[in-house]
């Protein structure tokens, strides 16, 4: 498994994690009269100055459209973008830069695969295996392509509140009828870290293609697409200190080459006639139109920033905080906490007595604590767990134990307020 584990190599000497808060101007503000405690990192992370300034600099010095351009600024913009791609390939440990497609984010990456690989490979009666903990972004695209192709969705169950995949059911479900196994690396609701390398290997054994939704893992733990052995992997820049509007699709070279294009337009063609066109090589075949160039600059800076800290170190910190929060939440009376007790990522979902999650989150906000409440784009999982919604705290390297303490204190106040 490439998710890192607690018997890790010694970490490189870096600044104290809490010192990194100074890199995030947004954290230094009062919300509703209280210091902001930002615990909504699974929705989106905050951005360090290094990322903000890299984009700023790009627009002030180097901005031009990429490819096809010959003048100096265009050369710089093209080099900038292709360097970001190479950096992304290193970040994911992809074998080649050409295996990295820039997209808007995880959602678009998955839609791209569903629309191209799916349309080309799925026949009536074929199965797509998902898990019950998938985000809508790794569910709805498959519903759409299933309807178009006559393929069928099957689901690997989740065990219950502790939120593990029911691997005992895998053999029965992962049959040769399964053409694709798409699953999340880290659950955005339960915090579960799935054994993706093992599961992708199981998929390969029945001849199924595998897709990993790495939205919640890419910025949080060491990631290695070759060690995972997936055919596709999707992630979003905005969840890993990068800007909004950019993300990645990793695809194995042979897969990408065999796929038809998706969107048509500039850059994705090699030649165009009135009635017919030929496609460019990968990854350009999948990048129609002007890409988010400044976004790729910010993403590059984010990769550098995270790797200077060390993803293993980030993972450990996330785990420590989440473990501490889990423990304190379970000892707080009247709570129901979801997800595995150990080995989890920095996401903790919970409920407090019969206070509705949205009432809880509104109240926490009055104390400056930013949580998320709702179905977290996991409606079917919510139904499975028998709850309409949960409250969720999600951590990143700039969060502290003191913030967890504050969360618990505020939850006590809230319970008191709602007369729990």
């Amino acid at each position: 498994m490439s998710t890192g584990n607690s018997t890790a190599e010694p970490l490189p000497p870096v600044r104290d994690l809490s010192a990194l808060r100074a890199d995030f101007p947004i954290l230094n503000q009062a919300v509703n009269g209280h210091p902001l405690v930002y615990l909504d990192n699974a929705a989106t992370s905050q951005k360090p100055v290094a990322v903000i300034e890299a984009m700023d600099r790009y627009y002030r010095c180097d901005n031009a459209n990429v490819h096809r351009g010959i003048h100096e600024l265009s050369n710089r913009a093209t080099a900038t973008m292709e360097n970001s791609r190479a950096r992304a390939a290193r970040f994911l440990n992809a074998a080649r830069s050409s295996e990295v497609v820039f997209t808007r984010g995880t959602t678009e990456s998955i839609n791209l695969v569903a629309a191209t690989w799916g349309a080309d490979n799925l026949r009536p009666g074929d199965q797509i295996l998902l898990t019950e903990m998938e985000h809508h972004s790794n569910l709805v695209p498959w519903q759409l392509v299933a309807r178009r192709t006559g393929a069928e969705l099957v689901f690997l169950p989740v065990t219950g509140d502790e939120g593990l995949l029911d691997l005992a059911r895998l053999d029965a479900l992962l049959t040769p009828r399964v053409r694709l196994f798409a699953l999340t690396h880290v659950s955005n609701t339960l915090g579960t870290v799935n054994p993706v390398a093992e599961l992708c290997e199981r998929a390969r054994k029945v001849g199924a293609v595998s897709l990993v939704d790495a939205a919640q893992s890419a910025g949080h733990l060491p990631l290695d697409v070759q060690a995972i052995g997936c055919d596709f992997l999707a992630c979003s820049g905005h969840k890993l200190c990068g800007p909004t509007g950019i993300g990645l699709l990793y695809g194995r070279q042979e897969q990408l080459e065999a796929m038809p294009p998706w969107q048509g337009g500039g850059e994705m063609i090699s030649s165009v006639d009135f009635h017919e066109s030929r496609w460019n090589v990968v990854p350009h075949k999948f990048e129609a139109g002007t890409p988010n160039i400044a976004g790729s600059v910010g993403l590059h800076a984010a990769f550098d920033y995270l790797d200077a800290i060390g993803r293993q170190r980030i993972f450990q910190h996330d785990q420590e905080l989440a473990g501490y929060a889990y423990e304190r939440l379970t000892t707080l009376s009247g709570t129901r906490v979801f997800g595995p007790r150990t080995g989890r990522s920095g996401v903790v979902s919970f409920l407090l007595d019969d206070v509705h999650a949205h009432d809880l989150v509104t109240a926490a906000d009055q104390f400056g604590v930013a949580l998320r409440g709702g179905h977290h784009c996991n409606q079917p999982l919510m139904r499975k767990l028998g709850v309409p919604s949960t409250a969720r705290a999600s951590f990143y390297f700039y969060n502290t134990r003191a913030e967890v303490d504050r969360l618990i204190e505020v939850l006590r106040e809230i319970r008191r307020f709602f007369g729990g």
Partner: protein
Amino acid sequence: MFDDLADLYQQVILDHSKSPRNFHRLDPADRTAEGTNPLCGDNITVFLRMDGARIKELSFQGSGCAISKASASIMTESLQGRTLTEVKGLFDQVHDMVTTGKSPASDMGKLAVFAGVHRFPARVKCAILPWHAVLAALEGQVNPVTTE
């Protein structure tokens, strides 16, 4: 903070959310409709018995937050004997109040407790959800309505 919170969750609201009135199914009902809030997935179903053009009896069921439950509960109390036109008029006033905070032109009775909602934009839909459902029921819409 606590003040704002207390302003949003006034005692009346907390009370109605914990002990909602008319919180049951009417069977048979002349009209019924379900409203869903896509932001949270909550939904509320209203049941109506009519006396000609007027609402004779009114109830609701479903799951939701304190705001939506209290809103539904107080709404069922406020709409007995009203016509569609009257309900529409009230809806407009409630909508105005919870989006802008403007105090309503006419006396709204208990409905006025929702004035605090306008300072919580993400919660406006909660207050409005049961109203969408009741309008849909009165207007005879068949599909579930959403608050968007």
